[in-house]
């Protein structure tokens, strides 16, 4: 029997796709493999060793920066998700667009369309002045900045879910004499849960990843892991970088895979 003609096949596409995947993973693979290299350079393989991992973990600055990153990311993710949920509820399923709705959309999505460097220097300008006025130079500025740019990332999935959500269940609840509050807590929220989780995860990773805004806003001793790494790369490449990158990579992969698996089960 002759091979069935597949309308989906395009010549060369599979090859390019394979190339693309290979290119996507090659640099990361090199990083991970050489993290276990006994020698410091990627030019020579000098045997397997965990020495760089040990050095990285013993490095107080690294551990501290990592913890700070996690703290800020957790805070930003939680706050941004809560605020984004409220904002999503407020801006979706509108019977008739009211004044200011378009403005709200623009404002909420603003961090997505403005390049990070622009926001970073703007924040530098404002916070520098505020720091001098108030004398406060703690983590507050970083927390505020991170929450602000995480909001649109949390907002989008929640909004998408709300828009496509069917009102029947909520109407049914109302028919059964449930107050708006009870309807919200017992019907809407559970239906929104996957989207809220998606938004929170997205916000968490985006905050964890942030380099530019944190680099400009931070005060002394407030390095996050990415800014610490940036400083190292610019001013003194240490061979631990491969190991630290691998560790960071592992965290990201774990988060993504867990999220992926949990969302699959739901589907």
């Amino acid at each position, binding site marked *: 029997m002759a091979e069935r003609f597949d309308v989906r096949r395009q010549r060369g596409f599979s090859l390019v796709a394979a190339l693309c995947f290979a290119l996507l993973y090659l640099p990361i693979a090199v990083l991970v493999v050489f993290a276990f290299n006994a020698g410091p350079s990627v030019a020579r393989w000098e045997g397997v060793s965990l020495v760089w991992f040990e050095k990285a973990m013993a490095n107080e600055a690294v551990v501290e920066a990592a*913890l700070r990153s996690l703290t800020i990311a957790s805070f930003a993710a939680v706050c941004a998700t809560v605020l984004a949920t409220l904002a999503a509820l407020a801006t979706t399923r509108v019977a008739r667009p009211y004044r200011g709705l378009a403005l709200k959309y623009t404002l909420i999505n603003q961090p997505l369309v403005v390049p990070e460097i622009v926001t970073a220097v703007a924040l530098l300008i404002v916070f520098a*002045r505020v720091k001098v006025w108030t004398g406060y130079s703690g983590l507050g500025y970083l927390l505020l900045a991170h929450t602000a740019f995480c909001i649109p990332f949390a907002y989008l999935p929640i909004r998408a879910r709300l828009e496509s959500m069917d009102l029947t269940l909520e109407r049914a609840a109302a028919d059964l004499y449930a107050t708006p509050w009870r309807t919200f807590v017992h019907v809407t929220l559970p239906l929104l849960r996957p989207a809220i989780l998606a938004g*929170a995860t997205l916000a968490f990773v985006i905050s964890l990843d942030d380099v530019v805004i944190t680099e400009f806003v931070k005060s002394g001793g407030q390095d996050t892991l990415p800014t610490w790494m940036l*400083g190292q790369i610019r*001013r*003194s490449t240490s061979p631990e970088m491969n190991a630290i990158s691998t560790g960071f990579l592992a965290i990201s992969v774990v988060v993504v895979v867990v999220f992926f698996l949990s969302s699959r089960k739901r589907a």
Partner: protein
Amino acid sequence: MTTSRILPLVAATLLATSAGAALAAGELQIYNWGNYTSPELIEKFEKTYDVKVTITDYDSNDTALAKVRQGGHGFDIAMPSHNYLPIWIAEGLVLETDPGSMENFGNVAPEWRDPEFDPGRRFSVPWAWGTVGVVVDTDDYKGDINTWKVVFDPPEELKGRINIVPEMNDVIYAAIKYHGGKNCDGDLEVLKKVRDTLVAAKPHWVAMEYNTIDKMVAGDFAATTDWNGSALRQRLQKPSINYGYPVEGFAYWSDNVVVLKDAKNVENARLFQNFVMDPENAAMISAFNRYANGISGSEAYMPDDMKDAPEVVVPEAFRGNAEFSRTCPPEVQDLYTRIWTDLQK
């Protein structure tokens, strides 16, 4: 991963690590050049005074000045170079801690006790001093390296493999000397030649980066302007890398520890200033960054490879070509800044 599961995880991690981390009595935020502070020194200081030290680094005097000037930085200690220190003092950025009357001041070498840039040492303490010169990998170039020609009018072998450390005043000084000018020269004729030389040389440079040690050793660069201690660290890793003292004229510099006016941990900062004037500690600093320090008695503790390294001990033949660079008057400094930004393309 619900948020309700993330928080306990974070809390547990924090708890686990903070149990081991130093619950120190105090803190100290140091703002220093990158790759310049001895980890052993910091460890010793932390243990001696039960203080948790955090170091943030910078890569040029201008960056440091800009950061501190804008306020709200959170640092206690900084290390401006001698030619910037008068600016810091004039701008009111440093605290008068009077190191001249501190316990260890007696160890400061006589020639460093009353410098032009901080008379009577009311603000600063010497950290390290050295020269600015040229570093070349002699595997790539066998000619004379004791000239600024290496970077400003490079030989064929080096074209496209040169780095310039972006310390503005060092580079402008070098170019001025290359054209026979003087310290803080404001002569427009000379400066025009300086600007033109720099702009013409730039296509032959491959980068303008601070991180020279790893990149020279790894072969990403074949030559660079650099400070002598950095050159020594490179030679120790790759013997073919040599330091050149340009005959047209090169500069001495000295970095100094100051306490910042809006420091939050003034007491600890003062302790640190005193701490680095101790000969053993000064030797620790030098052993790491490979620069000479201004503390008498530290020679006894210094590593052997520094004792007669050509990078540290300026050879007799070249000593006449050296002088300390200076803080230039504002109009001249302004010209230099404009030439420098002209160069950024």
